[in-house]
């Protein structure tokens, strides 16, 4: 069974249709790329699937269960986690607490258990000195912290919204390797939004392409990148 299925998913902000009739499925263990030009509706799509926004119409199923209008915290408990394109650190909590929060509330762990699993996840991501305030972190560390927080939810479906943005190539490579390893070990379905096509090519088995809210192509990166509609969407009529 697919982990996550959307059928005719649509979100309209008064006149503007940000996500238009998108139907797709994510399978266990796959890393799926979600690409498209700026304003294509990628982030809105993740907002819909994670419950931050409610759809105008359509349907979302998680492991066969209808979650179309389930609140975000319920989806988090079910096993859908995400990071944000714009970072969201909790600045009055220590780094370790920022990570623990996922397993405390989504997995009902005690503070002690949550601390241990948060330490393990941070070690896996190479995030150190967890007693610091979030204001002392570099951008790479904040991104790692947000990935760690999402992983602390022990999700079955994980969305990474431009986590590589603002990182240099070494850092990007480091995150790619970690995401690949974790997806494999934990049998997660991972959805990755990224503008750097090198990352998408290296990381994903399959991509979906959004343009103006519509799903215009789907398949392995090599195929999709040769699709005339996709090239046109990225480069405009000139190509």
């Amino acid at each position: 069974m697919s982990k996550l299925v959307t059928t005719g998913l649509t979100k309209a902000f008064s006149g503007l249709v940000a996500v238009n009739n998108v139907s797709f499925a994510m399978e266990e263990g796959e890393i799926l790329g979600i690409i498209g030009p700026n304003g294509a509706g990628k982030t809105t799509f993740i907002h819909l699937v994670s419950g931050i926004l409610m759809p105008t119409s359509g349907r979302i199923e998680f492991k066969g269960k209808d979650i179309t209008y389930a609140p975000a915290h319920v989806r988090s408990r079910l096993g859908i986690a995400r990071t944000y394109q714009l970072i969201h650190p909790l600045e009055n909590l220590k780094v370790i607490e920022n990570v623990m929060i996922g397993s405390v509330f989504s997995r009902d762990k005690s503070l002690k258990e949550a601390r241990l699993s948060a330490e393990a996840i941070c070690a896996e991501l190479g995030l150190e000195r967890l007693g610091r305030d979030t204001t002392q972190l570099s951008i790479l560390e904040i991104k790692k912290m947000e990935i760690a927080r999402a992983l602390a939810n022990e999700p079955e479906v994980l969305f990474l919204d431009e986590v590589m943005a603002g990182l240099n190539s070494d850092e990007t490579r480091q995150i790619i390797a970690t995401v690949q390893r974790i997806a494999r070990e934990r049998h997660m379905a991972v959805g990755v939004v990224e503008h750097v096509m090198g990352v998408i090519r290296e990381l994903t088995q399959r991509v979906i392409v959004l343009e103006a809210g519509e799903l215009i192509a789907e398949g392995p990166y090599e195929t999709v990148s040769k699709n005339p509609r996709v090239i046109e969407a990225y480069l405009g009529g000139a190509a």
Partner: protein
Amino acid sequence: MKFKSSYLAVAILSAVVIAFPAFLGAYPLNVARSIMTYMALAISWDMLLRSGQISFGIAGLFGLGSYASALAVLRGGMDPFVSMIFAALLAGLVAFALGFAILRLRGMYFSITTLALMEIFRIIMQNLHDFSGGPEGVVIPAVIFNGSSTALYWLCLAGLFITIGVSWYFEKSKMHLALTAIRNDETSARSSGVDIFRYLLFAFVITSMLQGMMGAIQIQSYGFTTPDTAFDANFTLLPLAMALLGGIHSTMGPMAGAVLLGIASEWLKLKIPYGHLVVYGIIIIVVILFMPQGLVGLARRLMRGSDTKGRKAGATHE
């Protein structure tokens, strides 16, 4: 090691405070009761503030507790002790029902609504002549403990200890993570599985119960109340000033603020009657402008400057 010595300090301090009646007269004990009441209100106000919600409804729930306790004794013949529990439960129940409406609000909208509710409670009590005694207020048959200042002091202290205990639980349990996450970033909190409404409702109900309980203790200790005294705006403003002075988002801050402002106000009342409110105003302005973290925040910063050790998590790496 540090852990144990802080427990020891708390135990010694508690013992000293419990023993106060042995070496203080009736007047200082009365002042202490007033300070402890404000302190409990300041702590309870701060507990909800940790979620980012600023309540101006303290006096409303305090007055509600006073009236619930007084009327339960007077009209229902309830035992005074039971009436205090009843008052706390009733305040909690009212907060629970109201919470469904007002905890959807944020920021200024929440604050103004709680302020309005406080006024509504007062107006209701003022106009239920036959039941509540109207503007003249209510008098209960007898003050609890026959008015023994020592016993009344311990009763008030018990209320304060309960409040501190609950606040400490809020600081040390997952409530701390939930409320801080809600205050910092609701989107992040939701994505991490925090049921925001549930935690806000819980915090609002619990803090309202504490405020109602303190109101009940107050009426049972004084034997009478009126709408204007039970719902006095000072029960909202002074706790707020104390928490701001001492330092918000902690148990220690409001406690320190209450001791300082409480003692200062007793002294000022003698020196410049009614002028003490002006001094309060000046203190609040100065604190907000120059030390938004309050006295405890200031002390913490000074200590961190001279000693960077002693942070629990990750201390080994530092």
